[in-house]
């Protein structure tokens, strides 16, 4: 079975802190994604990566950055956390096919105080 793991299930940070969310997949997938999920808005794509060291902006990249130094690991970085970044963050990965399902991790519930 494909396994996508995220470093924390719950995280509480203060405004202005730098926050790292880590995601690891064990299926040698080329593509990895970060989404945030908010009530009434569904899942929105923040950033994605289609190869090591490659990254592309999604629909809502402002206030975030990412890092992919190894194929299996994709990190989401909040340079200076703000309260409007309180959300559920979901990582996903997929094979390098144009039409390919994405496999999701369990999510990280981030609260910024």
């Amino acid at each position, binding site marked *: 079975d494909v396994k996508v793991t995220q470093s924390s299930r719950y995280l509480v940070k203060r405004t202005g802190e730098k926050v790292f969310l880590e995601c690891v997949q064990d299926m040698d997938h080329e*593509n990895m994604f970060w989404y945030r999920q908010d*009530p009434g808005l*569904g*899942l929105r794509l923040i950033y*994605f*990566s*289609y190869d090591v060291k490659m990254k*592309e902006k999604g629909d809502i990249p402002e206030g975030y950055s990412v890092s992919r130094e190894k194929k299996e690991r994709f990190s989401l970085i909040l340079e200076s956390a703000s309260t409007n970044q309180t959300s559920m963050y979901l990582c996903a990965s997929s094979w*390098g096919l144009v039409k390919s399902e994405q496999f*999701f991790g369990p999510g990280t519930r981030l609260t910024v105080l």
Partner: protein
Amino acid sequence: GESVGLHLPTLSVQEGDNSIINCAYSNSASDYFIWYKQESGKGPQFIIDIRSNMDKRQGQRVTVLLNKTVKHLSLQIAATQPGDSAVYFCAENSPLTGTASKLTFGTGTRLQVTL
């Protein structure tokens, strides 16, 4: 997650009945569609997919119907069980850079199964 359902449309069905969850998509160029199920506290889980050259696909207890004319998807669950209670999302696929695809998700429908 546990708060994802606060503003969701809700479908309530009795155990054993069939469920139909509907989804409208926006991009007429979308060529691949997926239904995901999300239980409380978990990430979305793949249920079934369909490509745009098909109008129906069946899985175990689930059927997806695609009507490209009106840009509409539906998920049918036969003999609904309590374990089917969850939020269901449809997602439409469009190509991105390289071989990555972008999934655009609907806002979801909460399915409640009553005994």
